């Protein structure tokens, strides 16, 4: 048994990634659950519209972070602010009682707002938009679509590529007259298509089984999903370039997947997280896809109102995908490309 223990420690010493995971994972989980695992939203963004907007804004407790006071606006304007995800709650004055429109797509903020407003009794009439029953599945299904795309894009793609490396067939592909870009595109296109089909199935099933609405444009949703897929496929290609075995690829993919599940706002609201970990959430692609999927499906948000998540995802797609494919190209037939660089035009070296 002593020999077995010694052998295991010696193997572990060389398997730095597993050792790093043994050290990093507990720390990661401790930090995440310590700072991010919080369902209580301590402050919500609020708008006040209508003739008595200024007065009401003054009277609201500090829990409501009033970011917009628009005396000239009305209920339609207030709804627009909610639809564009600029605020979590909009108070419409000029009616008796005051009307509070709550964004139900931001589940935990909405629950917190409703609980807070219920204390005011008859002074405020509460109307929850986009998710009137505050159903958890309505909020989760759009986020889970993103999670499934992440799973396929990151884990399945990286495994598919690493398997070629393990079998030695990647070496064979590198010598064949196929451009590295064609190898990459040829490998990821099936996953792109499969992930797209999965996305449609999950979306339709979510609508049929859980009555999740689809209020926005399918085209905006599809565009967001396509850009997001490029990001996660890029992550998959990147993982494959730094993994020699399927086991390593799965290990690394899960290491990338876990923060996306916990810090993207999918389970714990971003607004409730400590600032120290919230910024990690803002670096994760799933955060922005969830904004798009929840925005389009629940709030019927327009492309213009989702410009920020679209822009961030686009930048991520370009950076991650290009970086990953360049790394992949570098691994493919380095000798041939070096020779091509050295060889004069028109000759083969």
């Amino acid at each position: 048994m002593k020999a077995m223990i010694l052998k295991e420690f010696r193997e572990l010493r060389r398997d730095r990634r597993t050792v790093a995971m043994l050290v990093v994972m507990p720390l990661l989980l401790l930090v995440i659950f310590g700072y991010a695992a919080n369902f209580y939203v301590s402050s919500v963004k609020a708008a006040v519209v209508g003739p008595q907007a200024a007065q009401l804004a003054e009277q609201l407790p500090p829990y409501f972070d009033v970011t917009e006071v628009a005396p000239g606006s009305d209920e339609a304007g207030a709804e627009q602010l909610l639809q564009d995800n600029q605020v979590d709650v909009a108070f419409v004055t000029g009616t008796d009682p005051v009307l509070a429109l709550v964004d139900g797509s931001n589940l935990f903020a909405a629950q917190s707002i409703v609980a807070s407003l219920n204390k005011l009794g008859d002074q405020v009439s509460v109307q929850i938009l986009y998710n009137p029953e505050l159903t958890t599945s309505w909020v989760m299904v759009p986020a889970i679509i993103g999670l499934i795309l992440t799973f396929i894009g990151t884990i399945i793609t990286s495994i598919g590529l690493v398997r070629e490396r393990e079998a030695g067939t990647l070496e064979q592909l590198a010598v064949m007259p196929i451009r590295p870009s064609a190898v990459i595109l040829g490998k990821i296109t099936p996953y792109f298509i499969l992930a797209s089909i999965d996305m449609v199935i999950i979306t339709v099933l979510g609508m049929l089984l859980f009555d999740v609405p689809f209020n926005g444009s399918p085209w905006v949703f599809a565009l967001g999903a396509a850009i997001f897929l490029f990001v996660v496929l890029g992550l998959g290609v990147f993982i494959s370039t730094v993994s020699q075995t399927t086991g390593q690829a799965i290990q690394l993919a899960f290491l990338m997947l876990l923060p996306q599940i916990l810090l993207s706002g999918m389970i714990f609201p971003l607004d409730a997280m400590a600032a120290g970990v919230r910024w990690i959430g803002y670096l994760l692609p799933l955060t922005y896809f969830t904004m798009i999927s929840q925005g389009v499906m629940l709030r019927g948000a327009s492309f213009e109102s989702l410009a920020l998540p679209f822009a961030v995802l686009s930048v991520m797609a370009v950076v991650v995908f290009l970086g990953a494919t360049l790394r992949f190209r570098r691994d493919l037939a380095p000798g041939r490309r070096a020779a091509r660089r050295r060889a004069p035009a028109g000759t083969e070296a």
Partner: protein
Amino acid sequence: MSYGARDVTVRFGSMTALDSVTVEVEPGAVVAVVGGDGAGKSTLLRAVVGEVRVDSGTISAPGPSSIGYLPAGAGSWGGLTVTQNLDFAGGVYGLVGERLADRREALLHRAALEDARDRPASQLSGGMRRKLGFTMAAAHEPPLLVLDEPSTGVDPVSRMELWRLVTEAAASGAAVLLSTTYLDEAERAAHLVVLDQGRVLVEGDVDAVLASLPGTVVEVGTPTRLERSWRRGRVRHEYVPDGDATAGATVRPDLEDVVIALSIAGREGAL
């Protein structure tokens, strides 16, 4: 037009995998690179096909569309059937329609893989899989065929069939550069390159390699220098660098004896 490597040096970090290695192969010829594990055979072949960046020296090889390469691994996609593998390889090299079908059938027939055409490559025997790998590499009738240990782990009958395919390819004009650890089959090559620790110990045809050994090989009961001896069947052979025949009965060394003795001489700095 010959292909190969001239004065090629390849380093992996601080380790020199190939040290000023030169190997040339003419169209219609088979050149075998022989040597033990870690000698640099695969690195040399991979450098020729552009899989490894050379630190210095020149690689002379046609473009990727004119190279057929069988790596040391499986050489085929386990999840695809024999036919699908051949169709993929042919398609990559521009064979389509009837031309692809004709070529596929001819290769299946020559490699005796007709009955296995619908079997996934992962379910083939080792020999059948290597033959499939060879047919994929040769599908487009490339001017240069590079085969990394095509017969390693293959049964004697399949080895014989593989060599028939190799010699047929050379007879039809291909330059064949292959590596092998089986010295009996290496004797079939027109030219041998003996590698050890990244250096060429000797090269030439079989007779030239056999004649290149300084000293003698003797048959001994008890070796005088264990590190210079090796077992051949029921007897031991020993390399005697100074040719002192009193150490045992002098034997006429075959290729295996010569390669082992050359490796010993090379490691002792005698070459």
